[in-house]
């Protein structure tokens, strides 16, 4: 594999270049137009207002100042990163700025309409499918004979693309039957097959984490030390998977099977009947055990279900779960009094578990448009700002966001479905190594982390950085260096391409001065160096 990679590496670069030639000479297809309205926008404003009020109360309870508003371009960058895993292209920024000049007073506002455009782009379905897959099946390859992660992710992307409601997706994932290739939802089950057997405990733990947002894994050996989960709760839930049967036609349910556990203390085997720890009335009487479990989990009164996905989408959009000091799948039990998660979760449920609606509401809040700048001067103050959402929190880009941003920065045009071949080929060879070296957190990707030395080395000296920023006639460095009208425009373009913002007056003066004396190759080198510096800035590798 390594040799193949060495042989193919130069080919990839050639491929990259030829596709970029294709892209640059492709007749200037108009970018997708901006939608003038959003679906069900009649009650949209009221839920956004309600959430804003709740957030205001939360800030006030900690004595925090008003939120500072971020620039539109900053918000644009965040949205692209969260919904497509990459930064906006220069082409998109230019389009945005053109519309901005004419549409400042429009309703719904420009950012909301731009969000809608990002959500209708198939890049959203592809990108979110992978994010959701991480919570459902993790990142391990599993047993290839019975488990096809790629099919599962493609299937999820299709469900998202066709606007399938989340509770329907959930039911398929838990209860579908058939082969992992033909009925890709069952890969959720087969991912838990170890040896020839289903690991019921692992599957149960994963089900509760992914769909109820809580961790009960440790209750498989003893009662949960902090929450109300008992070992018997865990076993009762695991028993819903007790009739799963792996056959030649795939995953089936065999009614003669019973779930058995071995007692960790007495070492004796005993049968366990399926049982739910709460909400017995939500359990359907009909259907296979897995269908019953799915019915119970997705029951409209099961607040944990909507809260869990709401919290996950919140974390994907805002960089941290709503209860930001706690892991995304360790949400406290639903409180007696409605909290913000409930407000959003209720709206989500009332709108037929529509994930796009949830994204729209979250991204329309004041918080999503707030600046990552704040008055916090110490770590303690900043911790309070983060906990009470008095600031848009800064989070490190995940490896796939960083590589997506680096690739996008190397092109003026948008890298999208029309250039998927480039993207996928490039990723096939590059992503595995890059993501591993950069440090992929797998299912824990929403945990907050600081930067590492390894990452700094990879960005500074790695092959990918060098290949992407070395100027050629087709990449953005070459084009910005050679086709900008003057030095000011060249500097401005470099900033927009890499940081999605214009340079400050000080920055402009500094770099104008740097470029002033230089000609030809020396000037191009200076632009390459500017790109390197932008790539290596905190601003580039963090979401803010």
């Amino acid at each position: 594999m390594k040799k193949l990679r060495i042989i193919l590496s130069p080919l990839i670069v050639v491929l990259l270049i030829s596709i970029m030639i294709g892209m640059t000479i492709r007749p200037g297809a108009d970018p997708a137009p901006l939608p003038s309205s959003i679906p069900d926008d009649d009650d949209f404003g009221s839920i956004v207002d309600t959430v804003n009020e709740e957030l205001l109360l939360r800030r006030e309870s900690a004595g925090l100042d008003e939120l500072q508003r971020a620039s539109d371009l900053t918000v644009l960058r965040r949205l692209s990163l969260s919904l497509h895993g990459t930064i906006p292209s220069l082409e998109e920024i230019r389009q945005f700025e053109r519309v901005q000049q004419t549409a400042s007073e429009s309703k719904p506002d420009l950012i909301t309409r731009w969000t809608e455009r990002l959500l209708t782009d198939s890049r959203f379905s592809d990108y979110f499918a992978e994010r959701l897959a991480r919570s459902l099946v993790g990142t391990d390859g599993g047993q290839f004979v019975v488990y096809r992660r790629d099919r599962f992710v493609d299937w999820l992307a299709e469900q998202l693309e066709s606007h399938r409601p989340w509770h329907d997706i959930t039911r398929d994932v838990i209860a579908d039957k058939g082969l992992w290739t033909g009925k890709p939802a069952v890969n959720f089950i087969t991912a838990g097959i170890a040896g020839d057997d289903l690991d019921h405990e692992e599957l149960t733990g994963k089900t509760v984490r992914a769909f109820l947002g809580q961790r009960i894994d440790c209750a498989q050996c003893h009662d949960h030390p902090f929450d109300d989960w008992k070992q018997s709760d865990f076993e009762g839930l695991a028993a819903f998977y007790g009739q799963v049967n792996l056959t030649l036609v795939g995953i089936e349910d065999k009614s003669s099977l019973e779930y058995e556990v071995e007692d960790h203390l007495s070492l004796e085997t005993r049968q366990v009947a399926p049982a739910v720890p709460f909400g017995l009335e939500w359990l359907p009487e009909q259907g296979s055990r897995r269908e019953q479990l799915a019915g119970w989990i997705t029951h409209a009164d099961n607040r944990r279900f909507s809260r869990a996905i709401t919290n996950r989408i919140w974390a994907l959009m805002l960089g941290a779960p709503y209860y930001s000091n706690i892991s995304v799948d360790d949400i406290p039990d639903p409180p007696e009094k409605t909290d913000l998660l409930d407000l959003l979760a209720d709206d989500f449920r009332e709108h037929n578990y529509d994930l796009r609606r949830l994204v729209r509401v979250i991204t329309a809040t004041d918080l999503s448009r707030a600046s990552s700048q704040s008055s916090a001067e110490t770590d303690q103050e900043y911790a309070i700002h983060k906990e009470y959402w008095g600031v848009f929190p800064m989070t490190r880009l995940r490896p796939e966001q960083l590589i997506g941003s680096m690739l996008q920065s190397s092109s003026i045009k948008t890298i999208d479905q029309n250039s998927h071949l480039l993207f996928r080929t490039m990723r096939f060879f590059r992503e595995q190594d890059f993501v591993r070296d950069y440090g992929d957190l797998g299912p824990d990707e929403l945990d907050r982390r600081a930067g590492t030395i390894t990452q700094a080395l990879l960005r500074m000296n790695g092959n990918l950085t060098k290949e992407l920023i070395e100027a050629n006639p087709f990449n953005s460095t070459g084009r910005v260096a050679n086709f900008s009208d003057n030095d000011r425009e060249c500097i401005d373009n470099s900033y927009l391409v890499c940081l999605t913002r214009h340079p400050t007056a000080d920055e402009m003066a500094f770099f104008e001065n740097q470029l002033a004396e230089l000609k030809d190759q020396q000037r191009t080198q200076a632009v390459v160096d500017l790109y390197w510096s932008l790539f290596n800035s905190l601003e580039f590798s963090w979401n803010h």
Partner: protein
Amino acid sequence: MEPLNLNTSAMTRRDTFRLSAGLGLSFLLPAIDLKAAEKRGIERQKSVIVVWLAGGPSQLETWDPHPGTKIGGPTQSLSTKIPGIEIASLFPQTAEQIHHLNIIRSLTSKEGDHERGTYMLKTGYRPDPTTFHPSLGAIITQQAPNSNLEIPQHVSFGDGQWPARGGYLGDQYDAFRIYDPGDGVHNMTMRVDEPRQKRRLGNLEVISRAFEPNRRPAANQSLHRKTLDDALTMMSSEQLEAFKTDDEPESLKKSYGDSRLGRGCLVARRLVESGVRAIEVSMTGFDTHANNYEGMQTQAEILDPGLSTLIRDLKERDLLDSTVVMCLGEFGRTPNINPLDGRDHWPTGFSCLLGGGGLKSGVVIGETDPSGDQKDPKGPVPVENLFATILHQLGIDYEKELITPIGRPMALAQGELIQQLL
């Protein structure tokens, strides 16, 4: 926070070093404290190597076999150089070295889940949603740093899922990870000449000046500047050689074994020689729910040469008295053999090896029931005691309390000293 300093006249030692090295003036630099590095025996500043067996190794197929019993399975035992003590016959080479360390056969923990167990065995604390505890290596490097180092103080080899972290001490104490040890550190060469590199770093200062105002705490916590600075220091450091094994004799490399674990153990020894304080060498594949015996045979073929050569090599170089070596995983495995010929998670009565660093040697602590009827071992050693003992042995006051970011005082380690080893 230390700025890059390229645009100021106040040069730190690091900057001087970096600049001098870049200009070929490294002969002007004071020699790195060679005397400290050359010290041997008990005089030397102490380090810790943790050989981490991810997945939960079976005590019955390693240091606590019970051949011929219902729970023993097909595993046989063999004599060691500790009189009367036998270990699994899968470890013939370790049997020859194990008397330099000690065996604890009665560790107890309350965590039977991989992630929680790993947390417990790497930090000495049970997971707690309100605090994130630092790992042993992080505590050591924070409490007793080696100021002469230009390479990371805390290093983790291998691809274990939950490497040692800095916890509430901060991400800067996270272990520096190398997945595949032996061929140095990747991406260490800058791609342009010195003047251009200087220009690039100067640009970076200008860009951060525009971004960082009103984001100071977030910028500090990102460690962006610190990691960049550390990376630059590393790039020009001769200590990087410690990560390479080119100049090691072939016979020694062969003895460690050409595996991630073997190479990791060899590089761990080299790092100890350079003064690195805390090293973790991880090996995965111990979660033997099915085919435990075959699985452990494969694992032992890798672990036995690596671990035994590490002990021998440290001993021969007179480094063992200053290097604590601990070999363990997140829990042990059930005495009972399941229908898949596997063993499941068992956080009660499992084993570890611990020794070196001036601890006693050849001591065996605790006993498990050969019939498997008694769950609790004799002479139980709570996992917490490992941490108290190791920190104490390194001259760190393990009872000292630090204030966590949420203002809660927290002792470096809970638990008590294992008196039999002192």
